[in-house]
């Protein structure tokens, strides 16, 4: 690996020796050492990422243009047919709609709960850490177990379902909301923790000034807190959109997409197409569309951040 003259000069200044001295290497050799050992240190990470994420993703791009089953080595190139079929496929369209509803729900309910919880915690003196811990506990409970907890509570024969005469997970009109509710229960406490960390960085004199001006707690939240934590807010908004398109566990465990597809998301449709219907190429196309959606979201976020010049 060669180092351009300019880099060496910038790093070493005048008097840089081009010949490495065995015992006390010159600045140039030292710099080169760092560059080379830097990549050596990165090598294991790159190797793992290559084999687990990058190579399979590249295969996925290729397979999305083929009729690959997912289990045989045969794959015939069929051009854009998978993509054309996707948008004619009622399951895909329905999954996409549910993903949008899912995103809207997670942009509103947990964000509001997280902001409220964090703001309330930032304004109290006692038990702040205790409450924070309590809110966080559902987040560390495994999704399989969380799903079971709520399956028992929402059960139409024994639980709340019986009490209210509803079947939250079995009713086509309620099922998607119920799954979102269960997922949110495990999720919002995480937002409290992140928002609280951001709010504790807000300059206290801003609150003092607001109090002097006679602003109440609600005014202060909108006038002081929210503007101050805007980078965190924007980042979590972005991640919420991305994660909403990745959601899988709760639907798969609680309803498997049912009843009658009323809780299907793109992820569960793709999973079923890949592993039950043996349509690997078609499922890959779904995965690529999902990745493109997150790509668009990230790009929009980066553009907005650049024009507004938010610091993160």
């Amino acid at each position: 690996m060669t180092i351009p003259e300019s880099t060496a000069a910038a790093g070493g200044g005048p008097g840089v020796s081009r010949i490495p001295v065995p015992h006390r290497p010159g600045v140039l050799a030292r710099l080169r050492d760092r560059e080379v050992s830097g990549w050596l240190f990165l090598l294991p990470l790159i190797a793992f990422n290559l084999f687990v994420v990058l190579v399979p993703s590249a295969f996925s791009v290729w397979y999305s243009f083929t009729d690959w089953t997912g289990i045989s080595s045969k794959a015939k190139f069929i051009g854009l047919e998978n993509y054309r079929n996707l948008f004619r496929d009622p399951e895909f369209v329905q999954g996409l709609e549910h993903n949008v509803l899912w995103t809207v729900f997670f942009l509103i309910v947990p964000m509001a709960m997280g902001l409220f919880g964090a703001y309330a915690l930032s304004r109290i003196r006692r038990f702040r850490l205790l409450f924070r811990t309590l809110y966080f506990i559902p987040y560390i409970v495994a999704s399989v177990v969380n799903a079971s907890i709520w399956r028992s509570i929402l059960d139409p024969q024994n639980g709340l379902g019986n009490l209210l005469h509803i079947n939250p997970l079995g009713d086509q009109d309620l099922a998607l909301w119920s799954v979102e509710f269960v997922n949110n229960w495990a999720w919002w406490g995480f937002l409290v923790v992140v928002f609280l960390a951001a709010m504790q960085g807000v300059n206290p004199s801003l609150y003092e000034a607001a109090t002097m001006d006679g602003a109440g707690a609600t005014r202060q939240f909108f006038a002081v807190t929210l503007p101050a934590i805007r980078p965190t807010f924007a980042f979590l908004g972005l991640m919420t959109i991305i994660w909403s398109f990745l959601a899988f566990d709760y639907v798969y465990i609680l309803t498997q997409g049912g009843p009658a597809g009323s809780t299907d998301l793109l992820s569960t449709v793709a999973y079923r197409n890949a592993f039950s219907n043996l349509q690997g190429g078609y499922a890959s196309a779904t995965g690529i569309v999902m990745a493109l959606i997150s790509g668009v979201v990230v790009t929009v976020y980066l553009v907005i951040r650049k024009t507004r010049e938010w610091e993160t």
Partner: protein
Amino acid sequence: MYVALTALAIFSLGPIVLFFFNALKTNSEYAADSLGLPTSWTWGNFTSAWSQANMGAGLWNSLLIVLCTVAITCVVASLAAYALARLKVRGSSAFMTYLLVSSALPSQMFLVPLFYMWARVGLYDTRIGLILIYCGLFSPFGTLLLRSFLLGIPREMEEAARVDGAGELRVFLQVVLPNALPGILTVALTTGLSAYNEFLFAVTMIQSDSKMPLSTTFFTFQQGFTQNFTLISAAGFIMIAPMLILFLLLQRRFINGLANSGMGGI
């Protein structure tokens, strides 16, 4: 204010407490009153669940998978974080953007080809195959977390060691690593939690009952015993107990690690 906060705390904890109560009820008691206190404390559900759901094997597999994942991820992440924080590698900021993007990729995008690759090379339905996947999935996050931790450590001692002629590997092992231990512990905890709770890859990549980690052992059990909620509750509680205890012991480190990086996943 405290009223609202307490209501939210009940919302968070109530279902878990109820779940624990259900694990202590007999079946007939559960059928009569699934939302109340247990009248007699039936601890036997835990032992029945333990043997019927084959949780001993599941716990052993989870322990093996989590410990190996954590160990490998910590090594991989600390090497990479050192390179990104200290060794002026060209293109490192582009590389970090790549790491962020790759951890936001939908698993569905690479799941099927990965499954196929793993089947072809004999890693499908093996614990080591799952461990390797977890290392690939969790090491980017660990790297970014540890890199920001390393940036907060003064670098004078490293420079001194370099002046003394130490190579990068020695600087890393003797100077950086001991100082980075708190950060590495945070990475270990968050990685361990993710690996222990992971579901999608576990359910896809492990077929044999004898190799399943707890998440899929429990999933299989509750799919088969949908009627017996008391046993399911007991099994579920056995599964979450280790993480609850670990969290309560080391909660500040858990919370700070996750909060500072703002990463996780719905």
